[in-house]
């Protein structure tokens, strides 16, 4: 099995396609594929693009707008060709203002539309924080269910692409700690397609976080594809000694760690969370009760991060089944570093295996 992360070696902020991307076996959630359809090698970018295309074709209420998503097709080319195919009344470039994008999407959703908007980079969603947290998340509750906001907010996130400052943040905890938001993050092309379709169809607003470093990951599959439902985590590698929890960009790290661990006689079960809010307690707890040990991997800083919630709730629900404290294997509690330092910041297979070794395995 070959692995290629599609890492850009330059500090370019807006990579487009990666000619070096090679086919990888994801081991992920694409099992429910339609065998009859033609299989081809599909990047995550292409899968997302096709999901948008299919949604636009099926429902006139679906609108795609944001910064540079029209003529250019987005800085990551996720929306490539959509403006030409559906016209500027369905897919268009907005002025450069993120609060404006989310705020107007709210108004459109109130008037029957299903906007799919792009925040160009994780850190550039922050100007829209108020609109997302104070209105997108709360409108349905505020109006006792009379006004739903079926908005999908696409956010390319996380690092490992050699991005300049503010292009590599992992902002998921801001969104997951906000009641009213559903937070989804695919780790592979098949899930990217299926989960985006489901997010756009959802009456609840969805923050759809796309792991930038996985955009160029390829998978052989036929679209359309339907994977496991949103809101369900998936065991993507079975094991008996440890449960490794991962999402988005770190699923690859978890799978690689499991592979490496196996060489040392460690049987690691890997779960791709897929949806961060709500959390799939059932699937994850079942695994943790089986293995009695768990660790969660994420790029975001540790303190107050998503892993803290996962560790706390798994401990609350499964304390008597645990043999060891639940570990968080994460980025350090420092601002995301410059490109030449990110390899020292990001959780690696070595950091994962070192962390697992820190447990007292005699217990």
């Amino acid at each position, binding site marked *: 099995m070959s692995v290629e992360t599609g890492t850009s070696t330059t500090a370019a902020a807006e990579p487009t396609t990666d000619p070096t991307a090679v086919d990888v076996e994801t081991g992920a959630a694409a099992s429910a594929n339609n065998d009859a359809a033609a299989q081809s090698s599909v990047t995550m970018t292409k899968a997302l693009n096709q999901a948008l295309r299919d949604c636009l074709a099926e429902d006139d209420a679906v*609108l795609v707008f944001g910064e540079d998503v029209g003529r250019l097709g987005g800085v990551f080319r996720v929306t490539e060709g959509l403006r030409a195919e559906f016209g500027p*009344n369905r897919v268009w470039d*907005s*002025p450069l*203002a993120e*609060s*404006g994008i*989310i*705020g*107007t*999407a*709210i*108004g*459109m*959703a*109130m*008037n*029957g*539309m299903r906007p799919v908007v792009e925040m160009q980079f994780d850190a550039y969603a922050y*100007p829209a924080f*108020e*609109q997302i947290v*104070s*209105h997108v998340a*709360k*409108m*349905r*509750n*505020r*109006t*006792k*269910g*009379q*006004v*739903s906001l079926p908005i999908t907010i696409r956010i390319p996130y996380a690092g490992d692409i050699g991005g300049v400052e503010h292009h590599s943040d992992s902002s998921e905890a801001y969104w997951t700690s906000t*009641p*009213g938001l*559903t937070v989804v993050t695919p780790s592979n092309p098949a899930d990217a397609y299926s989960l985006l379709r489901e997010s756009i169809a*959802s*009456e*609840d607003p969805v923050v759809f976080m796309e792991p930038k470093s996985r955009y160029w990951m390829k998978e052989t599959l036929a679209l359309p594809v339907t994977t496991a439902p949103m*809101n369900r985590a998936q065991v993507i590698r079975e094991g008996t000694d440890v449960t490794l929890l991962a999402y988005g960009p770190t699923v690859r790290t978890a799978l690689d760690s499991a592979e490496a661990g196996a060489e040392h006689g460690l049987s690691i079960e890997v779960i791709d969370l897929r949806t961060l809010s*709500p*959390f799939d*307690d*059932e699937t994850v707890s079942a695994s943790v009760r089986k293995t009695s040990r768990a660790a969660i991997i994420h790029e975001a800083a540790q303190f107050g991060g998503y892993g803290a919630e996962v560790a706390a709730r798994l401990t609350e629900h499964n304390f008597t089944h645990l043999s060891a404290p639940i570990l968080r294997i994460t980025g350090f509690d420092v601002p995301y570093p410059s490109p030449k330092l990110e390899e020292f910041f990001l959780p690696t297979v070595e950091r994962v295996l070192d962390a697992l070794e820190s447990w007292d395995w005699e217990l």
Partner: protein
Amino acid sequence: MTIDVPTTGRSLPQLQPISFIGADGRLTDTPTEGLRIPSDRTLTGLYRQMVLVRRFEAQVTHLTRQGRLATYPSAAGQEAAEVGATTALAPNDWLFPTYRDSAAMLTRGVPVAEILAAFRGDWHCGFDPNEYHTSPAATPLATQTLHATGFAMAAKLKGEDAATLTFLGDGASSEGDTHEAFNFASVWQTPTVFVLQNNQYAISTPLREQTNATMLADRAAGYGMPGLRVDGNDVAAVFAAVTAALERGRGGDGPTLIEALTYRMESHTNSDDPTKYRDTEEVEHWKQFDPIDRLEKHLRRAGVLDDAGVDEVAEAAEALAASVRDAMNQEAEIDPRELFAHVYANPRTALREQQQILEAELAAAGTA
């Protein structure tokens, strides 16, 4: 040789606020940029509604001081802007109000108890927005300007004959969302009317510390949309300007910014202390520009309003006040379980578990 750019097409609002009926109740000779004074019949209706909403504001403020409501931001003194703008809306149009726009919501037909549910603490929004074509009142400043713009954009894309109107204040004019909304609306040419009620204060901060611009309406020019400044205490001017702007928007000619000069006669809310930032002379000064007094004088002079008419409206206002008292003296039925009912369209297991905690607490307290 100079860079080749357009050098025409920009216009600034006239400096003198558009006004039909002066503070003395007489017609002014102010240039009105082609706007026409509303008919006597329309003005009589606007008079009636202004008297009603003033009584409403006074009654609610009184009940708030008695502790019946948690807090209340009154728009007393701003009746012309609230009523004049809202009355110009067609049924299919949508209103995007702020927390200070109860008078507008009342004018839009939202029932008293449903408007005040938020301030009484029953629920954050007490009415169905779809029923009254009125958005929940926005508390975070300026955020609603973008909602109004987006709603209008959807209307335009769908070919609906509908426009949106949103209120904002002089304080909100400093917020980023205001500028984003002006820009998006103008770039997209949405049928949106921004009614900026310049009531001179953002809680305690006076206008001169809010902006160094000659006038807030000037900002429209920077976004390529028409802006105009009206005497916000002349309901005839507000109604005429907003009516024309809505028609302009519905006709496909894009948004308009209307700055309505007015004054907040009451404190920001009941918990405010205006003596710390403005003197009574200033408040007295603004009383001479009262929107209701001047219209009453005008209508009496025009022979369409007499003592009997004034008394009839006053009686209707008292009846409204009584209905406000009745509504606020009835406790709303609040079910704590509803905390969980509307957050998500798709039910969540973890939330059901938390609801069971509350159910157990309610049972233990004997209130289940």
